[in-house]
């Protein structure tokens, strides 16, 4: 109880400091701290899968993305609102907070829950992790659409490349570091990271873990080698890149269609074959999502000097 209060107080303080920060870099550093503290909150709420995802994607990859942006973002284009307007905004936001807090305090007791239904039907999927069962079997359509959203985000980010840079290497040019600390990290960490990612992907079927966390780690390892200049950034026009990004969602859709033909419902799995099919789709999705995440964080092709 004390631990919860301290964690909540810390998150609140860091969030307020982020909004009130002077410079972009300070704000991003505080935001990364907020993301890591939020992972604690998720653990305390009994959601270890979400804690892993928040730490990997919410704090880790977002942090890398936003630090790069803070270094290159320009000045504000508008003036800040005046005192009266700021006070009005603060009043409005307080109203929203109070309304949400009232909703929380007035939640029905006993709480409605789908946990019994999930527990009753989980055995048919062969998975031991209830969140994975919900993601891949019971709400499989959501996961399919989510992976499609990532593909769309990659396309949208690429479309923001300036015309003369289209088709070129993704992201801004990184100098090659031959030796030194960054090269050490880029040589040492990727094998360990790949091992950790495969492990998290595999145990995700029975314990907290899964493809999003594994994909985030794989993306981070690729980005590490990329930023150290040890691997060449992929050309946006490269065919293998586009095939890998699209392959995961395409496979998922194909399996859904197969389910429609054999079982009569989109994304229905034949009984007894659910676990192998789910794992195959998960592996394919991990590869696609990892490549998509790395491309999104490193950014569209930029102007070359």
């Amino acid at each position, binding site marked *: 109880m004390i631990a919860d209060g301290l964690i909540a107080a810390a998150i609140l303080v860091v969030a307020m400091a982020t909004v009130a920060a002077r410079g972009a870099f300070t704000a991003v550093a505080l935001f990364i701290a907020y993301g890591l503290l939020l992972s604690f909150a998720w653990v305390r709420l009994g959601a270890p899968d979400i804690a892993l995802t928040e730490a990997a994607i919410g704090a880790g990859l977002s942090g890398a993305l936003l630090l790069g942006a803070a270094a290159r973002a320009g000045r504000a284009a508008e003036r800040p609102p005046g005192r009266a307007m700021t006070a009005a905004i603060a009043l409005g936001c307080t109203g929203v907070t109070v309304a949400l807090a009232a909703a929380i305090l007035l939640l029905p007791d006993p709480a409605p829950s789908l946990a019994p239904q999930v527990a009753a039907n989980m055995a048919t999927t062969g998975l031991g992790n209830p969140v994975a069962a919900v993601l891949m079997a019971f709400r499989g359509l959501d996961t399919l659409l989510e992976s499609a959203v990532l593909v769309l985000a990659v396309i949208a980010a690429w479309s923001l490349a300036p015309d003369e840079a289209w088709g070129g290497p993704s992201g801004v040019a990184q100098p090659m570091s031959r030796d*030194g*600390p*960054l090269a*050490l*990290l880029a040589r*040492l*960490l990727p094998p*360990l990271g790949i091992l950790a990612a495969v492990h998290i992907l595999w145990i995700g079927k029975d314990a907290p873990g899964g493809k999003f966390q594994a994909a985030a780690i794989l993306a981070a390892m690729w980005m590490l080698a990329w930023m150290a200049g040890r691997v060449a950034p992929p050309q946006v026009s490269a065919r293998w890149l586009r095939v890998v990004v699209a392959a995961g969602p395409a496979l998922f859709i194909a399996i859904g269609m197969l389910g429609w033909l054999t079982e009569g419902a989109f994304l229905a799995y034949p009984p007894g074959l659910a676990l192998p099919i789910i794992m195959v789709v998960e592996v394919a999705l991990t590869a696609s999502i990892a490549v998509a995440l790395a491309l999104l964080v490193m950014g569209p092709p930029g102007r070359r000097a």
Partner: protein
Amino acid sequence: MSLLVDAASIAAILAGLVFFAAGTAGLLRFPDASSRLHALTKADHLGLGLIVLGLLPRADAVGGAPRLVAVWLLVLVSSAAAGPLLARLARRR
């Protein structure tokens, strides 16, 4: 026996917290970037090592203990690599 192990574990975690506090004090009070980096990396390594030591008796038998030690080693490696990078950047400024 378990009382002794619990007491030792709590003592190690508290000692680790003391080192973290010392490192943060160094971060806030030291004059320039290099000395701040020095305080931060050294004190944090030791603090984390002590906390890991304190958590080892409480970890799961098979998988937990090696993972805790691996976490400590990875933090060691990454901050050992990040320190010189930051110092180089600070010197250039």
